[in-house]
């Protein structure tokens, strides 16, 4: 279909523009330009395709694109930064739908050579696209708290996954040489079984591992697009899809490394609480339980916290997902500014898996107008805790749990944590003394340095802010 030097040249011009967009994306100040450049590349690609194929129903195309675009625009302007992960997961799903529909129609209509690359790619595009769609819907529901985020285990879970994958591929392969009616039936059956595969895959992943799942689905959505590109022999589709697959793979790897867990371990799911827990848990729970109150709680912990902050010269704030749940990001940033006005050195420490998708915490604090120069990644700030007067933990649990280094066999064992316990004092503004997503009791709560303010983080921080304003 597309041959000749001119099409190669224009294709590569579009790909080059896309690369420039991604190139710019490496710097926070230029990322906005990068995004616009990448969007331009996609629009140009669309214009090129319509230009090269004169026999298209352009009127109908314009109507459906307008409908989808208007919805996308409206939704994109309504979502809050807390809803971003659920929204992104939903969009991975939308991409999956587009991929499996296009691949299905191409396979049924063109019936390519069953031994050729296009046919194999078509089968895979259908299966990967449909599984990405259903898994993304589950991920989106879990991320939006519309579904319990604890892992769900089916009997013989791995066997179910393998059977669904094999069946889906078999049905898809049945399209080859089938009559039109049979081909459509096969395609439908393949999509349905692949969707079951995606659901079974995603329900087993727990709430704490959502950053990995959403990154992985980013990669599979890109892969489905690239496979679609092979089916219709379109270089632009292949190039864009492959780039996205690379990006998703990188993020998946970064998230796994930050949690010190292999990909297979993440996807096998964390055993539910109660089932085969290490013996150390019981001892730790006793230590962390409020039944044995830490020394600081003999005085009013709120007064101790206020005194600690008044006397501090350096403070590190550690926000976690609980901060977002309590909508306390504005109070956290306000506390930072207030302390700075008092001449305190204030920094924010961001754990790579804080929040529900890679980099989520930066966006949440950005909404509260934080100064980005004050946000530090784990590796850049962890050594500084020892020389810090007060660490303030706001809605973070697993990422500051020293048990990650001291207890083996837990879901967070070996994960690098923010060393809040190295600071002279630690103020904990968490909702309660319960464990984080991992289910591991927080050893920090038993530390005599810790001042525990268990309540809604937004209310606690408002009280602290008011307290700092009062004359001493």
């Amino acid at each position, binding site marked *: 279909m597309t041959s000749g030097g001119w099409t190669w040249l224009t294709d590569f011009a579009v790909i080059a523009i896309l690369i420039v967009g991604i190139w710019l994306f490496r710097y926070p100040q230029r990322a906005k330009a990068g*995004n616009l450049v990448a*969007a331009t590349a996609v629009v140009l690609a669309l214009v090129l395709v319509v230009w090269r194929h004169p026999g298209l129903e352009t009127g109908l195309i314009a109507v*459906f*694109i307008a409908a989808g675009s208007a919805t996308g625009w409206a939704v994109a302007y309504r979502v809050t930064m807390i809803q971003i992960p659920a929204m992104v997961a939903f969009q991975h799903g*939308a991409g999956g739908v587009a991929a499996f529909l296009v691949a299905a129609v191409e396979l049924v209509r063109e019936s390519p050579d069953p031994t050729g690359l296009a046919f194999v790619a078509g089968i895979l595009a259908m299966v990967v696209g449909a599984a990405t769609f259903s898994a993304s819907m589950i991920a989106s529901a879990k991320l939006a708290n519309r579904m319990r985020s604890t892992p769900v285990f089916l009997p013989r879970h791995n066997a179910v996954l393998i059977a669904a994958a094999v069946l889906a591929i078999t049905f898809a392969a049945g399209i080859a040489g089938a009559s039109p009616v049979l081909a459509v039936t096969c395609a439908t059956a393949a999509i349905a079984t692949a969707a079951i595969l995606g659901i079974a895959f995603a329900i087993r992943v727990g709430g704490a591992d959502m950053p990995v799942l959403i990154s992985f689905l980013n990669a599979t959505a890109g892969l489905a697009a690239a496979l679609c590109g092979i089916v219709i022999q379109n270089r632009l589709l292949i190039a864009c899809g492959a780039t996205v697959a690379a990006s998703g793979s990188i*993020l998946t790897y970064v998230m796994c490394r930050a949690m010190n867990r292999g990909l297979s371990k993440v996807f096998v799911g964390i055993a539910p609480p109660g089932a085969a827990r290490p013996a150390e848990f019981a001892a730790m729970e006793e230590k962390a339980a409020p039944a044995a109150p830490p020394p600081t709680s003999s005085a009013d912990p709120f007064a101790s916290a206020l005194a600690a902050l008044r006397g501090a010269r350096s403070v590190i704030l550690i926000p976690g997902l609980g901060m977002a749940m309590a909508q306390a990001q504005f109070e956290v940033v306000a506390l930072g500014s207030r302390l700075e006005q008092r001449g305190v050195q204030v920094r924010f420490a961001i754990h790579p898996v804080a929040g529900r998708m890679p980099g989520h915490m930066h966006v949440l604090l950005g909404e509260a107008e934080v100064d980005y120069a004050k946000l530090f990644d784990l590796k850049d700030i962890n050594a500084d805790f020892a020389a810090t007067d007060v660490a303030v933990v706001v809605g973070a649990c697993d990422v500051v749990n020293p048990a990650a280094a001291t207890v083996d066999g837990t879901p967070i064992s070996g994960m690098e944590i923010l060393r809040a316990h190295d600071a002279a004092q630690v103020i904990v503004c968490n909702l309660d003394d319960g464990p984080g997503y991992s289910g591991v009791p927080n050893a920090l709560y038993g530390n005599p340095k810790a001042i525990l303010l268990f309540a809604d983080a937004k209310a606690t921080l408002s009280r602290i802010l008011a307290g700092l304003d009062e004359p001493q």
Partner: protein
Amino acid sequence: MIEVALLLGVFGLSFAVGYALISRVPQRLHTPLMSMTNAISAITILGAVLLFSTEATVLEQAVGAAALAMAAFNVVGGFVITHRMLRLFKTRASRRE
């Protein structure tokens, strides 16, 4: 056979270039990065457009309509959300301007 090699070559090269560039994106940009690449993955919109040839059957057009609307939702929604997020990325110095 040459065509097959070319297609796979485009895939391999793009993956490699994408990997080299994106592995240098800092952690703080990871959420907008995923949102943007999500929008780029909806490039399947090109495939959806091609389903609307004038000889397409009603069923093909109906499926094509769904694919087209989904992909357009994904492209526009993805780039717009990314733009909104990136507007939040400011330092005190840039805010004063």
